[in-house]
């Protein structure tokens, strides 16, 4: 167990590789109760979220969710998050554990609507446990223990649901690149839901999975991790997240620098690489291009499904091009790598 933001978290159960492969081929169950949850509700909730996040919240129908980011004025992310719309005037944000307090304080500080009927913002992290059931068998497993109609629950939709006898919020979301669900429910029921899901999933090959596999799975899918690919000094365009920046939706925090950067060009760009020589380019290792250090690895690991050593790195935009070679400095030695197309892994969709 490792401590993570005050939570004791399992890094691995059966082993990162085995858990990773289970999620890619069958299913894995993650306890992600450390994640933060923030509720925003009231007549001005939509307006506030339109201003503080980059994606277009008005496009969300009730019981839909979207990937987005809380924005700094310079066009970088305070945090990345998933915004769920529970009612016209009621939103539920899932944010990174380590950023919860920062996010909450930031939204409070930005919020111009001081009447509680206009906007009420609550950090409800301690009212929710969160389990993520991920993998191609996730729907089959969950259908045995829930009343929710999973065929009607499309990707990035959510619904109130009873799972394993416990009432909560069920979302078809995840951080692994597979089909899957995330279930938010009251903490006292954690043990009950965890054991019941594992029990229902056993015939399908479901196993518990830890933070280690969660990280390798998201890396293969090239999903950013705050503190690695995202921080206050990196704009969303640089992080390949232009697709969640809806510059046409109206003004929002950070919109102007993003629009300007679209014209003037990026300072750096996130690229994927694959090691060509022996070695793993890990987080923080220098990237060499044309004889000098030109960037840094933000995440790097052995990729258990692809069976390659892969990573993400920031490089000057003029060098960002799949096929182009890089060298990663691994403990004093320059080791050859090649830029690849992102994501490294994409699941086959039926």
């Amino acid at each position, binding site marked *: 167990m490792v401590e993570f933001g005050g939570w004791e978290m399992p890094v691995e159960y059966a082993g*990162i590789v085995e858990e990773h492969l289970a999620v890619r081929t069958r299913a894995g169950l993650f306890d992600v109760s450390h994640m933060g949850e923030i509720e925003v509700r009231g007549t001005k909730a939509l307006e506030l979220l339109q201003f503080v996040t980059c994606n277009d919240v008005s496009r969300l129908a009730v019981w839909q969710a979207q990937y987005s980011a809380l924005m700094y004025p310079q066009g970088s992310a305070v945090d990345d998050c998933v915004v769920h719309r529970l009612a016209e005037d009621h939103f539920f944000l899932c944010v990174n554990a380590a950023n919860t307090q920062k996010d909450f304080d930031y939204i409070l500080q930005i919020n111009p609507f001081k009447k509680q009927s206009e906007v009420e913002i609550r950090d409800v992290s301690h009212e929710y446990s969160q389990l993520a059931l991920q993998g191609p068998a996730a729907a089959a497993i969950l259908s045995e223990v829930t009343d929710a109609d999973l065929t009607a629950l499309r990707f990035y939709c959510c619904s109130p649901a009873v799972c394993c006898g416990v009432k909560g919020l069920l979302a078809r979301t995840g951080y692994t690149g597979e089909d899957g669900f995330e279930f938010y429910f009251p903490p006292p029921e954690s043990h009950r839901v965890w054991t019941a899901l594992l029990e229902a999933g056993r015939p399908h090959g479901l196993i518990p999975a830890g933070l*280690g596999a969660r990280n390798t799975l998201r890396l293969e899918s090239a999903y950013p991790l705050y503190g690695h690919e995202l921080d206050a000094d990196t704009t969303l365009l640089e992080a390949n997240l232009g697709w969640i920046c809806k510059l046409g939706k109206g003004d929002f925090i950070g919109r102007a620098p993003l629009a300007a950067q679209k014209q003037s060009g990026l300072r750096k760009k996130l690229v994927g690489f694959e090691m060509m020589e022996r070695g793993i380019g890990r987080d923080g290792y220098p990237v060499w291009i044309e004889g000098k250090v030109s960037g840094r690895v933000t995440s790097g690991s*052995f990729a*258990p499904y692809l069976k390659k050593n892969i990573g993400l790195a920031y490089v000057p935009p003029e060098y960002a091009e799949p096929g182009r070679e890089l060298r990663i400095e691994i403990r004093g030695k320059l080791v050859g790598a090649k830029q690849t197309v992102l994501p490294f892994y994409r699941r086959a969709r039926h």
Partner: protein
Amino acid sequence: MYPVEFLYTRDHEWVRVDENVASIGITEHAQKELGDIVFVELPPAGTHVAAKESLGTVESVKAVADVYSPVSGEVIAVNPKIQSAPELVNSDPHGEGWLVQVQLKDREETEGLMTSEEYEEYLKGEASR
């Protein structure tokens, strides 16, 4: 668990001395802590290594660990299977997953190492920290 004919270091390497040749690997405890090992980097035969200095690295999915040489001498063999099958370090750390053999320069160097009994005590101490 920990063979009595081996000696152990505080950094979780084991060494088995046979005449003047020391076989070296990492312990069961070390492989378990590291998790799935995916990469092993070791010096080629002919390299001179010094006791307590880095002998190479063992990388798992989640971490990189230095392996320190328990003894001084010349590397005379590297496990030929280890590059293509680093998982042997997980499955059989005290056997098939050995790393290198070193021609000992000074047998007395092994006197400071722990016996299996001492190492097991040492692990208990580490666990309760």
